Each structure stands twice: as structure tokens, then as C-alpha cells.
């Protein structure tokens, strides 16, 4: 197994009381990794990025120690020219082998008015163990639309770090979906800079965490331009003695007038013994904005249970059914029907 070192990641932009143990996460992770061997499908309309340095300055969400960890990792770059709308997604699939440590970076530069989807599917055998760390940096041009989908379905011994960053120009749109079914530890990071006026982003995540596994998420969206919009939504299911922290920060800089941001979380706890932590932060330096968050943690609504029980469904089955439904709701947002159906089936067979 790889030599490990301690790293701290997913530190909140504004920290809070230390006794809550939510401010950041310190983990042991592979000190070094090798380039992975994914299958990469680059559709017509997507070019190789001549110089990945164009996106290198884009900040990611996990923080400087993950940047340092992946500093020497190989970077695969893609670009889409101005005005090009790519119908087929870029598909990157990993089938991670047991005992491996994979470090890879991706860069995507999307020109003005262009449109593209990047799908990343990271999987392994159920009983495989290892490490994998990825960073994906994206520059979204004016009026461009980019969808990023990252899915983890790794073995029960895998520790995955999946970190993205995006910089969105005027009227550009960046939509991210992160789904984690399994894996011993999942550390997800996201950092979006809404630089141009009327830029927007949505970050939706779904997770199913069980056993003694860990799920740690840190999203940060910086509102710089005027009339920008953010929608962050996460929906998850926790069972057994798993551990989850969800940090999200919407930061309205002075001058980000008429911007809006919304964070929502919905967590279903399947049993006692889970650790479920949430810090939905709003930082506001501008008067003329609207920032909101809401969260619902706990069990299913009584009226829903009553309705389903009255249809003859036992309580335990209701919870299992609703757990799958939550994941499926996130899966259904993936803008690729083939991949979507594949994941629905995977979810149903869990």
C-alpha cells in the first residue's frame, strides 16, 4: 500500500467553534500517486487544450494542501472554441485497480457562447482499496454553458478526493453534479468564481454513505459580478456509523448587486449512530443581494409515512425506498440519458 501523509483539506472560508470539529478535515492520504489510465472519449467539437496553464489559476475547493499534493500530477486539457455547441459529452471513465494511487488533473477552457458537458465516472471493484485524487479546473466563457458531472462508485477501501474549480464569465453558466455512492472516504471540493455579470452556477450533490465511511464536502461560491445567481442543493442518505460534514459558503462581495444565492440540504438519517454535520454559511458584504439557506435533517415526514403505510408498505421499506429516491432525484438531473439510466440501475441494485 502507498506511503501516506497527513493533509488538511476542505477548510471553511470563515471558521467557527473548534469544539464542533467542522472547520476542516485532516486525513491520511497517499503521499504520491501515478497517472491513471481512464478511457477518455473526446467528442467532435472538443479540442485538446494546447496550454493547460490557461486554467491553472482557477482555484479549487479542497484547498492549498490538495493543490500541493497534485502539483506534479499530469493534466489533460480540453477546449471548446467560441460558439461551438457540443452535443456529446466528454466521457472520462476510471476503473481503479486494487492497491493503486491515482493522481490526475483536468482542465477545460470553454469559449464564449460554447456549450459542453464533462462526465467523470470513477469506479472500482467492490472490495478494492486505494487512493485517487482529481482536480478539474474550468474556465467558462461569456454566455457559455458547462455541465460537470462527477460520480464515485468505488470499493469499500477507496479514499477519493474530487475537487473542482470554475471561473465563470459574463452570462456564463456552470452546473456541477457530484454523486458519491460508496467508497470508504470521499472528500469533495468545489470553488466557483462568478466573475462576470449575470453569471450563474448550480451545484447539486447526492450521496449515500454507510458503514463507518466518511463523506466530507466543501463548496464555496464567490459572487463578484452583478446579478449573479447560485443554487446549491445537496441530498443525502446516512446509515450505520458513517460520518458526514457538509460545508457550503456563498460569499457576496461588495458590488455584487442584485445577486442571489440559495443553499439547501436535505439529509435522511437511517439510524442512530451516524454523525451528520452541516455548516451552510452566507457571507455578505453587499446590501442589494438576496442570500438564503435552508436545511432539513432527520426523518421522513409523518404524513408521508402515514400515506405509504396506508398503502401497505412497511416502515422500513419506506425508508429504503425514499433513500433510493433521493439519490435518483439527483441522478435524474444528469444531462445525459445513457449515463443517467446506467446510474439509476446501479442505484436500484445497491
Amino acid at each position, binding site marked *: 500500500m502507498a506511503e501516506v501523509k497527513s493533509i488538511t483539506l476542505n477548510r471553511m472560508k470563515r471558521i467557527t467553534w473548534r469544539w464542533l470539529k467542522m472547520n476542516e478535515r485532516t486525513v491520511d492520504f497517499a503521499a504520491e500517486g501515478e497517472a491513471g489510465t481512464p478511457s477518455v472519449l473526446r467528442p467532435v467539437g472538443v479540442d485538446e487544450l494546447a496550454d493547460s496553464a490557461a486554467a491553472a489559476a482557477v482555484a479549487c475547493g479542497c484547498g492549498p494542501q490538495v493543490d500541493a499534493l497534485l502539483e506534479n500530477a499530469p493534466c489533460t486539457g480540453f477546449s471548446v472554441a467560441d460558439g461551438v455547441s457540443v452535443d456529446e459529452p466528454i466521457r472520462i471513465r476510471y476503473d481503479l485497480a486494487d492497491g493503486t494511487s491515482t493522481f490526475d488533473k483536468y482542465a477545460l477552457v470553454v469559449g464564449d457562447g460554447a456549450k459542453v458537458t464533462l462526465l467523470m465516472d470513477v469506479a472500482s471493484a467492490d472490495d478494492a482499496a486505494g487512493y485517487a485524487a482529481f482536480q478539474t479546473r474550468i474556465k467558462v466563457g461569456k454566455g457559455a454553458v458547462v455541465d460537470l458531472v462527477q460520480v464515485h462508485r468505488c470499493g469499500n477501501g477507496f479514499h477519493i478526493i474530487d475537487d473542482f474549480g470554475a471561473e465563470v464569465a459574463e452570462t456564463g453558466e456552470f452546473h456541477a453534479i457530484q454523486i458519491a455512492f460508496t467508497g470508504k472516504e470521499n472528500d469533495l471540493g468545489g470553488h466557483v468564481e462568478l466573475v462576470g455579470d449575470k453569471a450563474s452556477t448550480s451545484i447539486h450533490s447526492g450521496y449515500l454513505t454507510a458503514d463507518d465511511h466518511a463523506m466530507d464536502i466543501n463548496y464555496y461560491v464567490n459572487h463578484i459580478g452583478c446579478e449573479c445567481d447560485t443554487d446549491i442543493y445537496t441530498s443525502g442518505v446516512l446509515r450505520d456509523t458513517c460520518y458526514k460534514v457538509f460545508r457550503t459558503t456563498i460569499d457576496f462581495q461588495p*458590488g455584487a448587486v442584485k445577486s442571489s444565492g440559495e443553499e439547501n440540504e436535505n439529509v435522511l438519517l437511517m439510524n442512530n449512530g*451516524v454523525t451528520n454535520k452541516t*455548516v451552510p454559511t452566507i457571507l455578505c458584504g453587499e*446590501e442589494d443581494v438576496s442570500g438564503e439557506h435552508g*436545511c*432539513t435533517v*432527520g*426523518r421522513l415526514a409523518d404524513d408521508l409515512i402515514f400515506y405509504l403505510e396506508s398503502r401497505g408498505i412497511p416502515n422500513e421499506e419506506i425508508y429504503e425506498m425514499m433513500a433510493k429516491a433521493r439519490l435518483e432525484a439527483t441522478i435524474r438531473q444528469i444531462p445525459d440519458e445513457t449515463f443517467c439510466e446506467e446510474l439509476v440501475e446501479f442505484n436500484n441494485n445497491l
Partner: protein
Amino acid sequence: MAKEKTFVEDVQRDLYDFRDEEIDFYRVDTGLTRDIVLQISEEKNDPEWMRDFRLKCLDIFTHSKMPPWGPSIDGLNLDNIVTYVKPKTGMAGKWEDVPEDIKNTFERLGIPEAERKSLAGVGAQYDSELVYHNIRAEVAAQGVIYTDIESALHGPYGDMIKDHFMHLVRPGEHPFAALHGAVWSGGSFVYVPPGVDVEIPLQSYFRLNAPGAGQFEHTLIIVDDNAKLHFIEGCSAPKYSVANLHAGCVEIFVGNNAKMRYSTIENWSKNMYNLNTKRVTVGENSAMEWVSGSFGSHTSYLYPMTVLKGDHSKMDYTGITFAGAGQELDTGMKVNHIGKHTTSSVNTRSICKDGGISNTRTSVVIAPNADESKSIVGCTSLMLDSISRSDTIPAIDVRNQNSDVGHEAKIGKISDEAVFYLMSRGISEEDARAMIVSGFAESVSKELPLEYAVEMNNLIRLEMVGAIG
């Protein structure tokens, strides 16, 4: 009369910004040393355990680090702070016996009048010592104890104090709890016996007059089973160019089937570092209510904490913060659900203007055994200009499956739609905006005793003189 201008005025502090000369006051040296702690202990005639406790706290303080997460307290240099200032008087049981200048101070603050009109008892602290303490005879006859904590320490309740003093707020929790344990002085002790309903409130008022001084009062309240109490705390200080420090501590023990309400209007001057710690533990079927208004201070760290220990216990928190120019007020609350069927309801409001910074920091923890517990937290912030800041940092930790936790936060300006709606009903824009700010604060003011609600409305004064310019 024609109205010329509308704006939300900054907190009006003129009422509080007067000072008395220190004549023949006793002061320890500035800074914090073992000798100073022993000097305070000797001055207070501490029992041995308390002297040892102070020294232990000093040791903890000298080895502790400042919190990395809150507003800057770089402007607070403890080497320049006087931790004990004793006015030239003992504690009086009648206002007539209080020295004239000090009595005038409290009269200007309206304390004796409030006592006559609507309070069951009053404690008045001036700098480091209580100068007045009194309780109505009929309340005392019920067995209610309301006295200065030093007297209680040496009286029949000495063992009770020993069993409770800094047992809820441990000195190792943060540096200012340790500092408090080392140099605490003044404050009140309240004991409400089982089954006693104190129908009208008790009040303690804290006045810090000395420049460069710290105030470290300790309030210990024990509400026994089936008892009921409303306690009011007020505080103010004149403004100085040097930093003052308030590091008080409030510990409240609520028994079973009991009810406690703690109301605070905090209006320290803008040179004050208000690093206060408040905590309550609540027994079975009992209720705790916090009503909190934070208007003053240069920098505040203030988060009353509730431990819902007993099954079916509950807590309500209503708080408002107003941060003006030069202020960074980091306020909020913490609640830990330990017992089963516990509930908490939190409603915080904050307003900031003229570059003021308001941070709303909360935590809700549901322990694994807290079955069927519920918590709902609402944080609403109103920004009145774009040079101010308003940050909301809520933390939620839920470890029980059969619990419900909801959290909502909203930050924004005065709603244009709301103004438009009111204007379409014939209300001028100025009046509409004033109504909205007033309504924003109302959820807190309506929870306060009348005279405090009036004070709060005076603090957030709405000037209605003219057209929008």
C-alpha cells in the same frame, strides 16, 4: 408637519455616555499577575477553595491561546487592563445609603424608578463591586435568595455556590472563561426554592465607569423544581479612548418542571470588548427563554448556550443585534439537545449599517439519545448599506435518527416589493421603510418587559423628519 428626511439612526448612546470622577477608589495594578489575583482574593476575603480556584484559572489562562475564529481582539491588551476597581462604598440595602454620585448614575439610568414600578429586586454593580442590592420583602418571604455572590459565598449558601460555581462554564473552555475565574468580582446569586413563582422580575444592572478597566461579574442562578423566575440584566458604560473589557459569566441551573426567562439589553460603549459567557442547564419538563438585545461594544463574542438535559425540556431564543460604525458584533447561541423529546426554537435578527459588522454564529447539536427532539433556527439579517457586513455561520450536528432539525437564514436589504406594497396602500416611502425596520425588530421588542422594549426602540431610533435625500 412635513417630513424632510428619513433614515435609520445609529444607536443613540448619549443617555449612557456620562462618567463620574474616581475619588478614593481602590484599584489594583494594570495587567494580570499571580500577585494581583491574590490581592483580589484577599480583598474579597475568599475561602481557601476559591483562592485556589482563582490561581488554577490563572494558570489555565496563561497557557491558553486566543480563539482563531472570531473578530479581532488585537486592540485589547490585557497588560493595560485593570481587573479590579472598587468604589469607595460598601453594598447598600437602600438607595439613600449609596454615595450621591453613584446613586445619580443609576438614577439617570432609571434603575431606582424601575425597581419601584416593576421589579421584585434589584442589584446594581458599579465597576467591580455591587453597590446596591435589595429584594422585596414579600419575595424574600417566599424563601427567594437574591444577593451579591460574595455574601452568599460566606453565608449558609456557601456550599451550594461551591457545588455550582463554574461547573457549567469550565475555565478550560476558552481563555476568557479562565480569566473570569481568576479575577471575577461582583455579580449576583439567586436561588428560587421549589414551587416558588417569582411573579415579577429581578434585575441586575452593571455599570462600568472606570476607563481601562475590566468587569468580571459572576451571576449564578438556581431555579429549583417547579419554580419560576424572570431575570433581567442591563449594562452600560461611558465611552473612553482606551479599551475596556467585560468578561462576565452567567450560570443558570433550572430544575425539573421549572421555568426561567433571562432578558438582556447590552449597551456597552464602543470601546468595550464584550467577551461574555452564559450557559444554562435545563431539567425535565422545564423551559428556558433567552431574550437578548446587543447594541453596544466595539467587539462582542456573545453566544448564550443551553443544555437541554432533561427529557421534554425546551428552549426559546429571541435575539437582535444592531452593529453600527466601528462595531463587530459576533453574536448568536448554542443549544445541545441531550434529553429525549427536547425542543429548541431560535429567532435571531441583525441589522447593520455605517460599516458595522454583524456575525450570527449558532450551533445546534442533537445527541444520539435525544430521541424525538426538534429544533428550528431562523436567522434574518438586514443590511442598510453596502459598506457594512453581515455573515451567518450556522453549525448543525445531528446524531439521532428520530429528530427534526430545520434551519433557515436570510440576508438582504429592505424589500423593494414590501415598500411598493405599502406605498400602494397610500403610505409614503419614508414611512414604509421605517415600518419595515420597526417590524423587523418587533419580534424581539415584544418579548421584552415594557420599559426595556421602550429602551430598545430608543436605541434603534427611527428618525422621521423629511424627504429621502
